[in-house]
């Protein structure tokens, strides 16, 4: 369980998130949604220990303020929104960096070709020798996810669940790869790990999240299952835009939901 109690964090003296209480249990996908600038990424950065905050954040009961970077690296892996490189690293070199500090938990036999296996999972088989900088934004995002997967390859290590913290993991992906990535996240949770993901697509959120935290102006506006949280009143209010769920478009206008994938 990742647990935040009374967390407040500021950037440049301005408070971005305040009095956040949130818990993300192992075995579940917890989604953070909300309008732009509501503090979703700041909350994720605080949970991953990048930003100092008041209040306490614990992973599996351990206060993250007191643990060393390499210990934290065994407990959780973090996917940033975008990563820009200034040197011509190959895809394989990037993915292998996931094995740097933590413990993948992979068996001895898996360990050697773990980067290739991770790349295959994000549908980038055969990309290992390419230069990262030559890939498209969506491909780069998947390379980074493969790196993150290497870091916590086994969702449970020594009986302890581990966590994926994902900042908009599917925002630059096409629909096929959105589904592939969200399925990876769900599988990770089903195998005993925990996932916290900042998401923008409410349909994908409704489809894959076990719990949803809705943020508004730096605070948690609602926390619960998709059915509890995604109501006309709440969504209209939080996104400041009158919305009605489950409305079909007028006949003749095509629409496509991720749920439509067969």
């Amino acid at each position, binding site marked *: 369980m990742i647990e935040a109690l009374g967390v407040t964090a500021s950037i440049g003296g301005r408070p971005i998130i305040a009095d956040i209480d949130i818990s993300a249990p192992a075995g579940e996908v917890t989604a953070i949604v909300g309008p732009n600038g509501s503090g979703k990424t700041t909350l994720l950065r605080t949970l991953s220990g990048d930003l100092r905050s008041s209040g306490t954040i614990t992973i599996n009961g351990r206060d993250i303020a007191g643990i060393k*970077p390499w210990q934290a*690296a065994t407990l959780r892996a973090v996917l940033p929104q975008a990563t820009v490189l*200034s040197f*011509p*690293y190959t895809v394989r070199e990037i993915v292998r960096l996931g094995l*740097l*500090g933590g413990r993948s938990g992979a068996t001895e036999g898996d360990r050697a070709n773990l980067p290739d296996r991770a790349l295959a999972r994000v549908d980038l088989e055969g990309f290992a020798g390419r230069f990262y900088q030559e890939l498209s934004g969506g491909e780069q995002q998947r390379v980074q996810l493969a790196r993150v997967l290497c870091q916590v390859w086994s969702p449970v290590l020594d009986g302890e669940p581990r966590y994926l913290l994902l900042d908009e993991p599917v925002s630059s992906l096409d629909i096929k790869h959105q589904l592939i990535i969200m399925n990876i996240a769900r599988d990770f949770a089903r195998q005993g790990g925990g996932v916290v993901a900042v998401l923008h697509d409410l349909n994908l959120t409704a489809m894959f999240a076990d719990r949803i935290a809705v943020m508004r102006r730096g605070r948690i506006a609602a926390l619960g299952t998709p059915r509890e949280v995604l109501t006309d009143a709440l969504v209209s209010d939080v996104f400041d835009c009158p919305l009605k769920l489950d409305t079909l478009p007028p006949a003749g206008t095509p629409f496509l939901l991720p749920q439509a994938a067969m």
Partner: protein
Amino acid sequence: MLLVLALVATILFSLGSGASDASAVSFLLDALSPSSEAALSIRDRIIMQDIRLPRIVLGMMIGASLAVAGAVMQGLFRNPLADPGLIGVSAGAGLAAVAVIVLGTTSLAPLVVIFGSFALPFAAFCGGLATTLVLYRISTRQGRTSVATMLLAGIALAAMAMAFTGLLIFVADDRQLRDLTFWSLGSLSGATWQKVGAVAPIMLLALAATPFLARGLNALALGEATANHLGISVQRLKYVAVVAVAAATGASVAVSGGIGFVGIVVPHLLRLLIGPDNRFLLPASALLGASLLLLADAASRTIVAPAELPIGIVTAAAGAPFFLWILLRKCGVLDL
């Protein structure tokens, strides 16, 4: 492997070249079997042992230090154009050295009396370290170092050091000006075993820190936050990197003045050849830096023999066009 061979070949070539015609082969034969018929004249042996050898050892250490310092800076700042020259470390070391040259007979005389011939290297080293510490203090807030602030502060500090250096040059007399010019262009001509002994421990310590740095610098390529997520203690990494760079640069500037372009050209060339992985890049930079500096020094000794060109002229004259060529070639292929 190839780089090791290249270095050995350069050492031999460098031993054999110079104003005197003493040859490397006969020196080696002489060292291996002192009683053989190929024994050297005493004059040649002195040239080899006390002039060329210390010069070669010093040149190798400086070349390795400058190249590694450049590679580490570039990794630290995630910027392929970073160089100790850029963030003011060299300028700070230079200011201290110029101060000793110009004020050595007046206000800094006590320093010169105490340290004797070590005053200049010692001052330059302190200047480099002081610049780095000030820089670190300015750019670190709440235990976190901002690389952007550090880069900008470094440029400002370099400008300040240059201004004070200019002021000192303005008040210098003719003899001092000549010393200054020669020192600032860089030269290995004063190499002695004594100088080697003075800077070797500092440089070797800096070089010894690099295996620890390599892993961390690779992670840092993904950004500070991600490096931390990967399990690297970023604060400690930065601290060790900065001190290592200051030590390597300060020591180099102290004994050789400004030798430009080694720190930028060598890591660049190697990234094209073997890729950016710091575990290979750092040791390879040391080897190639050592080789290149020896070659440049051999050239500086022979082009206008028996006189000598300052080595800084050779590295800049050869390095700058080469650097431009890399930039032109890489344009459009990969972003720097």
